[in-house]
């Protein structure tokens, strides 16, 4: 009785072939972008992306879609400025509306630490020729009208910083746009296919053993986020990754707040209003390592009073859904990228709480890494083995993100 209507196809999950030039493990944003870049930019089309669950259903579906480039470290900042440029042209590249929107970001400053860090970012961004400036408490109403500006309480507002290089995109559409574009270039997308082990010849990995059978592969690229430690353990490799839940929650549709994206370090708040009107908010990282993806009342109860202190009108908004992603954190909050020297496997992990924003640029660089057999300079700072045998790590640490 069905009469399916005509609709432009997105992607179709297929059965795996026995052999590919490249197998990408993980059909999230990074994995799909890598496959797409291999096929569309490097001429390598015999590529499969395998996904143990549903495409784009991990942290791609669970993150708060913040895209920004106001990083403390110069190399982080340059990478994310490149990413922003890639976001700007992504819809044309994919022929798909990912709804990227550059809307800017307001970051509140509550104390000396916030002010110093905000100025450090602002001066760095200005030096790079991009827009950023301080907003005095008196002028904050123009940028974030609902924020209660007060000198008292636990969260006094001593000002804020405006960064133009920030925006958001529709996370699902990013994954789907990449999947559709990659498949048009000949990439196989295989959902419901979990890696059980690696096929080796000598020290080299020459394929993956999956729940859908053995798949031979010239190169294996891991884009598996919190699934990475289990995969690496099968190679006998251990990286300093800690897996923790990161929660977000959303309200009902609200009339426009007149605030683009709002961040507060002290309130550990990230807030952004989507096109349709719902408000997406991020919670602080779960303090304990865990693998579940369950929202926890405890963290909501801890954070929501801070949110309603800063934006009192939100007391009348409603919590509709809360959820968690499972993020892979490194000691310094920066990713781990490299080619595992023994096995030849390309590893991309450790993006922690902030991998979404880098999606379009990571895909291109990882594709280059596959083709050249070496990690491009833009990712060199994320060396896989930078923590090996070190008792101390350089510079900024977790606060960088």
């Amino acid at each position, binding site marked *: 009785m*069905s*009469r*399916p*209507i005509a609709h*432009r*196809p*997105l*992607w179709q999950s297929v059965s795996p072939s026995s052999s590919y030039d490249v197998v990408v493990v993980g059909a999230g944003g990074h994995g799909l972008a890598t496959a797409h870049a291999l096929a569309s930019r490097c001429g390598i089309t015999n590529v499969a992306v395998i996904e143990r669950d*549903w495409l784009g*259903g991990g942290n791609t579906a669970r993150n708060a879609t913040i895209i920004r480039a106001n990083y403390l*470290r*110069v190399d982080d900042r340059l990478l994310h400025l490149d990413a922003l440029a890639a976001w700007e042209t992504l819809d044309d590249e994919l022929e798909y509306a990912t709804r990227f929107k550059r809307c800017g970001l307001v970051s509140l400053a509550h*104390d*000396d*630490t916030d*002010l*110093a*860090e*905000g*100025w450090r*970012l*602002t*001066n760095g961004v200005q030096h790079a020729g991009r827009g950023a400036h301080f907003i005095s408490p008196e002028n904050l109403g123009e940028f974030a009208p609902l924020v209660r500006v007060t000198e008292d*309480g*636990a969260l*006094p507002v*001593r000002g804020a910083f405006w960064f133009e290089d920030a925006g958001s995109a529709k996370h699902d559409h990013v994954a789907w746009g990449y999947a559709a574009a990659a498949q048009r270039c000949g990439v196989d997308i295989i959902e419901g296919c979990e890696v059980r082990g690696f096929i080796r010849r000598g020290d080299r990995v020459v394929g993956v053993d999956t729940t859908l059978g053995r798949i031979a592969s010239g190169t294996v690229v891991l884009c598996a986020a919190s699934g990475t430690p289990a995969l690496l353990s099968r190679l006998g490799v251990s990286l300093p990754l800690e897996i923790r839940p990161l929660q977000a929650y959303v309200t*009902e*549709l*609200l*009339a426009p707040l007149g605030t683009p994206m709002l961040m507060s370090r002290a309130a550990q708040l990230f807030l952004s209003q989507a096109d349709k009107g719902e408000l997406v908010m991020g919670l602080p990282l779960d303090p304990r390592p865990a693998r*579940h*993806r*369950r929202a926890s*009342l405890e963290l*909501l*109860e*801890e954070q*929501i*009073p*801070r*949110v*309603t*202190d*800063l934006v009192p009108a939100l*007391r*009348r908004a*409603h*919590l*509709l*859904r809360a959820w968690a992603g499972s993020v892979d954190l490194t000691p*310094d909050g920066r990713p781990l990228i490299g080619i595992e020297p023994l096995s030849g496997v390309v590893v991309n992990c450790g993006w922690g709480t902030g991998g979404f924003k880098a999606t379009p640029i990571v895909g291109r660089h990882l594709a280059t890494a596959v083709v050249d057999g070496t990690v491009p300079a833009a990712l060199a700072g994320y060396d896989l083995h930078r*923590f090996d045998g070190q*008792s*101390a*790590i*350089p*510079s900024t*640490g977790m*606060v960088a993100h």
Partner: protein
Amino acid sequence: MRRLPTGGHIDRTQLLTFRWNDRPMTGYRGDTIASALLASDVAVTGHSLHRGRPRGTVSHGWDEPNSLVSIRGVGSRSLAWATTTELVDGMEVAPWGGRTDLASPDARHYVVRNRHTDLLVIGAGEVGRVAATAAARAGRSVLLLDDDVRDPSLDRALAGAYLHHTRAVFAEPDGLVAALDYRGDAHTLWRIRAGEVLTATGTMERPLVFPGNDLPGVMLARSVATYLHRYAILAGDSVVIAAANHTGVELAVDLAAAGAHVTVVLAGDRIAATERLASADIDALSGRLVAAHGTDRVTSAVVVDSTGLEHTLECDLIAVSGGFDARDHLEKHSVSGLRVQIGKAIVPVPCPHRQPSTCTCFVDQHRDVTAADLSGGVAAGLRSVEHLKRFTTLGTGADQGRLAAVPAAQVLSDLLGVPPELIGTSVRRPPASPVPLGALAGARSSATSRPVHRGPLLDEWRVLGWNLRVENSWVVGARGGSPTGVAPDTWVTDLTGVETCILHGPDAGKVIDLVAGLLVVGNRSRVGLGRAGTVDVVAEVSDVAGRPAVVGRALQHNSLHEWITERIRELAPTARCAVVDISDGLVTLLHHGSSTVPTHLIESTGSSTGDPTGTRRMLVRRSLAVAVWQHLIAAGCKPLGHDEFQAVRARAGLPSEGREITVGSPPNLPGLVHLTACETGIGPVAGSLVLNREAAPVGHVTSVAHGDSVLPWVGLARIDGGESLGETAVVLHDGRHFDAQVRAKEHECTN
């Protein structure tokens, strides 16, 4: 739709007036807004979000997708469910309109309360009430929650242990349940710790998907019965009932008895039902409902009988029931990723799946998602219900799509040729119903989840005309202006935020040695390192009132106490040692110069902070702090505010916690440099950029002591790893350039 002259559980002696879309109306005490509207023959309670279609009340509870309202005047709120909100005299009610206006009035206020019980029963249906009363009789402490109206018999049976109008919204795996008492303006968020939780939340009725199923006047059968029995409302005078189960027969008999003309559409030959209906003189038709017609409300139903003949039945109400599904949202929240299995009792969905622009087979009425929309997703290649949810926005509305989930699985089953139980519903995310953020905050504020510490000297600082502000959760005092950091001969300052923990127990000595061993020498300070070799705490072991103590600040942890207890748990789990945080009882003062303080006022004198000219750290009892402070000031000591003290350290080239020594900084602070301005005047701020001779950024300023008309400013700066700096540097702040000389490199800062 009309109110019957008798019956119902409403109080007809209390007539209430309210306004709907500015039209005056009446209801009775005991009505919900939805029942009062039905009694007033209001069929259209709003228009749909995207397609602007008229919509009416479908249900009588929290699952309602259409009758969402906003209320002004008495009992004002930005968003409310007409089906669960009690009518109050003087309310001004209007459709919600699809978006909450945060500027609209809202009379709700919230408290958070805790309760403990042996057994928590959620749901006062048959199972819940029997379980709760039996357990109470057996002497157990019991709490029974129900999200519906009050049942007086339970009040008697479970005095004080029965909460009605209270909806469980979170059920945590550790037994914590959060429930919202949503009645009236004063809402309570109950946090309930239960030894055992019995979830007896019953079932929810499944709507049918067919063309025109969103017309006002298409309602769930059980809700039609509830409006009849509880509110004495006949929701239609001419009723077509299409039900997959016995509910339809019972409802038909009751509606006919109340005076309605009823036709029952029976799926298949059901002899017992036919006989029962015949005896009540009710028309029965074997077949299926295929469409509803009407403009602003239902005017007819189209039924195809078992011989294939089409009948058009004039009616003003269609009561539907596609079967019942377990209301298991609450327990499914605590299980990650589990998909719901769907039972077998399904009425086939006669959906022609037409073009999205014309399809009126609504799966999710709130989000305006039709069967054709789902069909579009399938045509695009999507198979997972998670993808189709995101493709169509199915189930993401303010009603949380509870009525939409199972019909969606049925439609997808038909489209994909897969049994619905293999399709399932998308993973359910808490809360079980929308919760105002205000309810989760309650009276709590950022100050309760992030306490602000206040020392005893605040009044002293006010007398000095200082500004008080919060830094790193402590109130500090600052003189204001741009301090130059030129230290007077003798001064005193309050080291706000320094924590003191003393160790008790037979193994205290062993533990203090352990802690002393963990504190490695960093740049001028002793620091405890984290797992990546970065600074977690800045602290030293000391002696307070004859006991071993640790004094310092935590950078990475919430407190020094937490860091010590974690280290004990990790390295000496069997040690008999208690760590007692006595920071609240003590004040740490830093004093420089020759004036002395009577020793009986001082608890302990810490080691010198390294300043060769005699700076002493004093631990003073909180109650004596004002006396010590006043004594020193009377003796000629100049009080230094927070910013002045930072400036003194900066001018002296001394690193400070939270500025140079930060979370993630290595203990020996490589790359720390001391800058001196080439010119006099006020300097840049912390966070300014340090550029090398090629104008490339190589680091940033962390602390500044300002200059004045004769004095150059000086600052401390961190140079990024691997970068180098010559003898001069340029400091960039907000577009202004400052020339500086590099006065000392890291090794010279260290001593």
